[in-house]
């Protein structure tokens, strides 16, 4: 089901390479994806909507 609560990147936050629609799906479900352009590992935090001050972001592993 469409993931409404977590922002999903449409491009790699490291190199800017556009993510294909399927890569965006993988990222939204697996919460992690390796960019095939620069090999940066994009990781999505679990986002709690009640947690006002915290925003989802990519972490470098």
């Amino acid at each position, binding site marked *: 089901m469409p993931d409404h609560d977590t922002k999903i990147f449409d491009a790699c936050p490291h190199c800017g390479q556009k993510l294909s*629609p*399927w*890569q965006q*799906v993988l990222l*939204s*479900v697996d919460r992690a994806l390796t960019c095939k352009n620069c090999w940066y590992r994009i990781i999505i935090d679990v986002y709690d909507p009640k947690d006002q001050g915290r925003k989802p972001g990519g972490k470098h592993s």
Partner: protein
Amino acid sequence: MDQHIDSITKTLDTLLVEHGYGNRFQGFQNLMRLRIRDVLLVSSLYDLYLFEEDGRLYELIRNEYQGFNLSHSPELTRVSSGKEAIALAKEERRFDLVITTLHIDDMPAIQFARLVRESGLNIPVVLLAHDNRELKYLLLKGDASVFDKVFIWQGDFRIIIAIIKSLEDRINVDHDTRMVGVQTVLVIEDSVRFYSSILPIIYTEILKQSQRLISEGINLTHKFLRMRARPKILLCSSYEEAWTYFQEYREFTLGIISDVDFPRGGIQDPRAGIDFVRAVKEQQSDIPILLMSNVHANEQDARDNGASFVLKDTPMMLNELRQFMAHSFSFGDFAFRTREGVEVGRATDLRSLEEQLAIVPEESILYHAERNHFSNWLKARTEFWLAHQLRPRKVSDYPSTEALRTDLIQSLHNYRNIRQRGIIADFTKETFDPDSSFARIGGGSLGGKARGLGFVSTLINDYSVRDRFENVVIYVPPAVVLGTDVFDQFVDENGLRKFGLTCTDDREITRRFIEATRFPEEILGELAAFLDLMRAPLAVRSSSLLEDSQYHPFAGVYETYMLPNRHLNPLVRLNDLLNAIKKVYASTFYQSAKDYIKVTSYRLEEEKMAIIIQKMVGAPHEQRFYPDFSGVARSYNFYPHPPQKPSDGIVSLALGLGKTVVDGGNAIRFSPKFPTDLIQFYSVKETLANTQRSFFALDLEASSDFDAGARDILTKQYGLDVAERDGTLQFAGGTYSAENDAVYDGLSRQGIRIVTFGPVLRNRTFPLPRILELLLDMGPWGMGTPVEIEFAGNLPSGERTVMEFGMLQMRPLVVYREQDQLNVEDFDKDTLLCQSDQVLGNGAIEDIRDLVVVDFHMFDRARSREVAHEVSTFNAKLVGENRPYLLIGVGRWGSLDPWLGIPVTWDQIAGARAIVETEFKEMSVTPSQGSHFFQNITSFMVGYFTVNVHARQGYLDWDWLLAQEPVERFTFTRHIRFAAPLTIRINGHSNKGVILKAENVLASPGA
């Protein structure tokens, strides 16, 4: 602890608990990671004799494991001395556990255990004493703490299983509780004799109950996996040990079975159990606890503190223990009760739970919801995700009990639907959902097509693709698959195998198969049950072992039949289905299949047929049934138009059944990334020439006489005027206005109707291009190769408010690997027979001496079938002589429509190594990438040249060709043979190719 709960909560809040990369139950696969696989038993031969009773210990244990669907039983190795044990353990380094008796040859057991510790082996050592008195002496005199645990043998080999399981539980509990929320049972008992007797019983009960409960709509593989999620037993012998475990796993505690009198603070405490109960209840009041004691007086105390009680050493003790577990651990039926204890309903599984929830009184729902009974009952069935979903439902969260009831029912219902998707479960009438399930009947392989579909279904489910687009549902139509064992049984029991392999008459083969009377009875029963649930039109499709291999997709080789499935008499429907199945079975042995297999490395004897019986995608329109759109999408485009790249893919789209596309008819071709780039419509003339002017539909009222000759007689062709009447041309249609000599989207004007899908592609009324773009990305990711997808769907109209997109098939696509880039530029025109910039293939072909040529001047579109027959005759001759040839002809090879080209089937030209298609006098050719024919070209790596001389797209020296004296000639075709081979060179990267004339003169006749 709260953080720990939070992280579990977050994990459980997603479906990651039960999902993985295209593999459901990934979470369960991670359970019980650490296993006791190899056990070293140190005992005298006599002790072993006592353990084994009438059978070998290993076999007894193995049977027990198999009986409980436990995946593998441990290996047992026996030695008789301590020295030998240590030497073996050090040398082989494979043992996970040592079990020793008191009677070993060369040293006391305690010394042995110490030596094991000192040797650095790091293996747990368990003492299995044979005699209680001996053990008492040991415990008094020696230090038994050197053993990891002590047990007493009491005549039941199951103690060994209990020892192994108890150790495995202890080492896995931490991980497994965190992973999926596996439950724990605390057993507190310090008496070696007593826990040695009840532990095997507890394990047997837990395993038996777990096995029984793990049954709903899942197959054996998943049962094995779910058994890993059975409750873990934690054996403790002191208050402190028990309390530590309780604190650690409070959230997961299913229940507690405890002695009353056991050590606390190092000394025996006759009230330790009572105090423990009190302390537990203060923190978690709903945990079921059973106290066991020899002291009768403890019973009142136990009950006053909310625990059950059993008197030890009574004849009924073990039975009462079993009953407690069955009742309190939620292994039994869910009994709906009122607060007063009156039973008002009963559920045995998820489905009946959902049904009962709809009808039991409100007060009962309240009673159970407040006590988390639903959650506990679900956990006993390893339904952790659902249990977690239901657990936080406090009544106060809802405006009314009715709202709570509705929410519970909805959660259960959704969960059951979700869980069914993406699994190929064994078919049962009770669990098959005619709107979504994909199930198997019979054993054996599912075959290539079904495997592909099962895989797609899993991907769609695991990655939530189904609802990813608003107002769109993406799905695999529900189906059952008959496994290949059914084919084997049918063919062998009717004596058809040898006959099928040797007979060359397709009609005779069909007749014999249809007339064969023996069909596996249990399969018949399941098919009847399936038809009882499924009343929609059905497609009966082949799914053979060899089909959809990465190298030879066998596209279009076997038959597909469509059935209206509407007759009022269920026996007639069953009979129709059976006949369709038999005809698909028969097609395994048709001449076309035999010819096809001949040019592969397979043997026909290796081929086995599974059958997919699938709900057709479409909607009824009077007596016609068909989808609003269908097509084939490929993730690799062999003829990309700049700025398109090959990896952008290409789609062929048609109105009505997909037969239009797969048989090479006119269809809309576009790249999903560039949906408005429609090259075939660059001029009005081209548009009218290349557009779809009719469509296929299933005739729901046609009689399904299965005669021996007919292929699929129920699929008929209709004009676009019919589609307009049906309302299906609304989003697909355009109009050619002769007055303005222009083509317009839509049907508002008067004029000739054509198919353009303008609103879908140009105006983006529906996200079809985006859906295809996503799936053409998903497919190669999942399969590891480029893919081809067959699809069909319905657009919103009338009562249907969502777009339905059905995935009918996904198979690997053969794409040439780029090798050396051949230079095709620098050739003298005199040496050129043919040159093209639209060529499939790669590399050089330098062994062709034979040509089969359709005479450009003689060709008559009205007689293209005769041409096909002539070509087929030459093909048979040359295949028989093992001579590959170059085929040159006009129009589209393999065209469904005899007016567009030469309607050969693949087997009729299977001997061609390279093919040239050129234009008609009136019309240019465009390569039809969606057809089965095209797929076979790519999979057999046949060089394929497309030439449109008049449009200055390529070159073919007809004059030189037709001046050559043929070896043999028919009305429209000729066979030419050269002494020296032609040279064919293709650059797969640039799609350019040349065919050079043979250097020498013609071969003499008979060469």
